[in-house]
C-alpha cells in the first residue's frame, strides 16, 4: 500500500510537470501565430505620426479608427481613390455565386456518382479527383483563351465561372465521400415510392446533407475569397476582387507609406473568411467527421 502511494505520488508530480510543459509549448505556438495579428490590429488603430515615433510592437496610445475609415472609403487603388469598399462588393459578387453554384453542382455530381452509378462512373470520378491536383498556374493560359472566346474576359461572371470549374473537383469529392456512407436502400425505397432522380435529390438527399454543405461552403468561400492569381489574371481594373485591390493599395509607391491603412485594409480583406469560420466552424469539424453520423 505504501509502495503504491509513493508510486502514485511520483506519477502525480510527473503528470504536473508534463502538463506544464504541454501548456508552455501550446502557449508559445499560440503566441507565435497571434503576434502578427496583434501587431496588425494595433498598428491599424494608431495614427501615422504615432507609428513613426513609436516602436512596431507598442500598443496605440490613442485609439483611432481613421485608418479603417480611410481604407474602406478613400484609399487609392491605382488612380481611383474610392477605397476598398468597391472591391469588397466585387469579391462578394464573385464569391457568393461561385460558392453556391460549385457547391450545388458538387452535390448533384456526388449524388449521381454514388446513387445512380452509371457505366464509367469510377473513371469520371477518378478524372475529377485528378482535377484537384492541377495547379492554378497550369490552367491560366487555356482559361484566358476560353474566357476570351466566351466574351467573359475581365468580368465578374468570367471569374465566377473559373472558380466554379476549378472548385467542382473539390466539392464533388466532398459530396461523393459523404453520400457513399448513406445507404443505397434509401434511394431504392424512394424509387419504389415513385420519386425520380431530382425528387429524391431535393426531398431526401439534400435535406440530410447539411454537414457536408457547410464544409463545402467554408472550403469554397475561403478558396475563392482568398484567391489572388485568378483575380489578378482574369479581372483587372474596376472588376478586380478585394485581394487584388489590397495588393494595389499596399504597393502604391506615391506619397508616404501609410502602414495603418495597409493593415486596416488587410484586416478588412481577411474579415469575411474569419466570420465564416466563427459562424460555421463547429459544423466544419462535424462535417469532416461526418462518416460516423447516422441518420
Amino acid at each position: 500500500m505504501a509502495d503504491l502511494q509513493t508510486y502514485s505520488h511520483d506519477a502525480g508530480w510527473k503528470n504536473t510537470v508534463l502538463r506544464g510543459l504541454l501548456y508552455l509549448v501550446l502557449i508559445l505556438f499560440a503566441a507565435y501565430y497571434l503576434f502578427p495579428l496583434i501587431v496588425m490590429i494595433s498598428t491599424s488603430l494608431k495614427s501615422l505620426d504615432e507609428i513613426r515615433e513609436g516602436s512596431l510592437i507598442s500598443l496605440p496610445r490613442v485609439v483611432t479608427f481613421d485608418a479603417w475609415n480611410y481604407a474602406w472609403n478613400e484609399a487609392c487603388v491605382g488612380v481611383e481613390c474610392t477605397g476598398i469598399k468597391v472591391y469588397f462588393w466585387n469579391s462578394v459578387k464573385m464569391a457568393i455565386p461561385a460558392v453556391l453554384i460549385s457547391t450545388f453542382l458538387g452535390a448533384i455530381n456526388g449524388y449521381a456518382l454514388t446513387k445512380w452509378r452509371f457505366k464509367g462512373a469510377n473513371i469520371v470520378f477518378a478524372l475529377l479527383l485528378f482535377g484537384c491536383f492541377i495547379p492554378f498556374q497550369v490552367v491560366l493560359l487555356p482559361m484566358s483563351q476560353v474566357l476570351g472566346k466566351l466574351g467573359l474576359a475581365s468580368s465578374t461572371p468570367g471569374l465566377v465561372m473559373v472558380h466554379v470549374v476549378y472548385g467542382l473537383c473539390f466539392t464533388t469529392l466532398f459530396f461523393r465521400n459523404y453520400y457513399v456512407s448513406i445507404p443505397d436502400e434509401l434511394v431504392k425505397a424512394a424509387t419504389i415510392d415513385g420519386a425520380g432522380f431530382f425528387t429524391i435529390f431535393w426531398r431526401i438527399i439534400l435535406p440530410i446533407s447539411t454537414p457536408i454543405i457547410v464544409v463545402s461552403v467554408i472550403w469554397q468561400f475561403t478558396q475563392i475569397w482568398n484567391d489572388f492569381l485568378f483575380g489578378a489574371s482574369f479581372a483587372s481594373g474596376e472588376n478586380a476582387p478585394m485581394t487584388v485591390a489590397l495588393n494595389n493599395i499596399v504597393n502604391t509607391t506615391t506619397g508616404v507609406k501609410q502602414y495603418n491603412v495597409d493593415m486596416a485594409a488587410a484586416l478588412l480583406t481577411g474579415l469575411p473568411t474569419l466570420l465564416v469560420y466563427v459562424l460555421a466552424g463547429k459544423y466544419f469539424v462535424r462535417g469532416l467527421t461526418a462518416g460516423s453520423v447516422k441518420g
Partner: protein
Amino acid sequence: MASLTLDKVRKAFGPVEVLKEINLAIEDGEFLVLVGPSGCGKSTLLNLIAGLESSTGGEIRIGDRVINDVHPKDRNIAMVFQSYALYPNMTVRKNITFGLEIRGVSAQERDKAVADVAKLLQIEPLLDRKPSQLSGGQRQRVAMGRALVRDPDIFLFDEPLSNLDAKLRVDMRTEIKKLHQRLGSTIVYVTHDQIEAMTLASRIAVMKGGILQQFDTPQNIYERPNNMFVAGFIGSPSMNFVDATLIDNGGKLAVSIERDGGPITLPLFEAPESYKAYVGKKVVFGIRPEGLTHKRTGSDEPGSQYVNFDSKVEVIEPTGADTMTVIDIAGKEIVARVRPDRAPTPGESMTFSADMSQISLFDPETELRI
C-alpha cells in the same frame, strides 16, 4: 393483390450468373419465403421482382401483366428493407405518406390513410417523431406502415427482422403473420433464417448458388427434402447424415450402417419403387434428431415404425424441453432428441429408437433424394 409468376428468370452480372432459370408461381394471397445462405441470389431475385434491377432473361408477371420493363413505381409493389430505409429528414407521418404524395393523392385522403395504418400497427403516438427518435422495433413498424399505406398488389420484405434482437424478432414474426392473415395480401419475403421461413411461409423456395433447390410447402420441404442441401438447411438441429448401404433383408429393404462391433441394420418402414435401383448400393441415410429418441413403447412389436439399436453416448446438450444427445456412429456424430427425464449420462450406453417413417435416403453422388 395478385398472383406472381417467375418464368425462367435469369440474372447475370457480366459473366457471373447469379440466378439460373428460376421458375416460381404463387397464387393471390400466398406468403412466399425465399430462403438460402448468403450469396444464394435470394435478394437479387427480390430486387428483380421490385424492378430495382433488370433481369437478363425470362419473364416476371404480376397477375397477367408482364412487368419486366415496367418502372418500379408502376409495378404496384411495396418493399420493406433490411435497414428500414426510413427517410431521416421526415417525420413518421411524412415517411408513410411520401409515396402517396408523389402519386398525387390528396392531403385529405393521405391523412385518412395514415390514420388507418397507424391504428393497425399501433404507431399513432409516434407519427410526429423523426426516425432517429425511434427504437428498432418502432422503425420496423414504420417501415411496414410505409408499405401498407399504398395497398399494393405484392409486398416485398428483404430480411426485415435481421436487425432486431432475438426477442423482438419473434414478436414481430408473429405480428407479420397476423397481418398477413388479416389482410390476405400476397407477400414475398427474403430471409436466411430457416425458422422464419418455416413459421411464416405458405410456400418456401430454398435457393443455393442461384439455383432453386426446392419450392414447396414448409411441411413437405421439412419431411421430403429434394436433396441433402435442403435437408441440412431446414431444421434445427439439422438432419443427421450417415453413410449406409441399402440391402435386401429377407424380402424387406433395410439400411445397413457399418460400425465397430458389427453393422446396425435398420429395416425400412416404407419402400417406394425408387429405392429398388439402389439395392446393394451405397446411400446416405438421413434422419432428423426428433426421429431418433430414447426407446419408445411398442417399438418391440412386429410391424412397428420404430427400430431399436444400442449406442454409446458421447455428449449431452440439454435445451430444457429436450436433451440433445450426441452419439458416434461410424465416425459420424449423430444427434438424437431425448426427453430430459430419459436423458443418459455421457459414456453410458443406451437403447435408441429410430422412427423409420421419417427418414430420407439420398444418392451419395448427386446428393438428390432417392
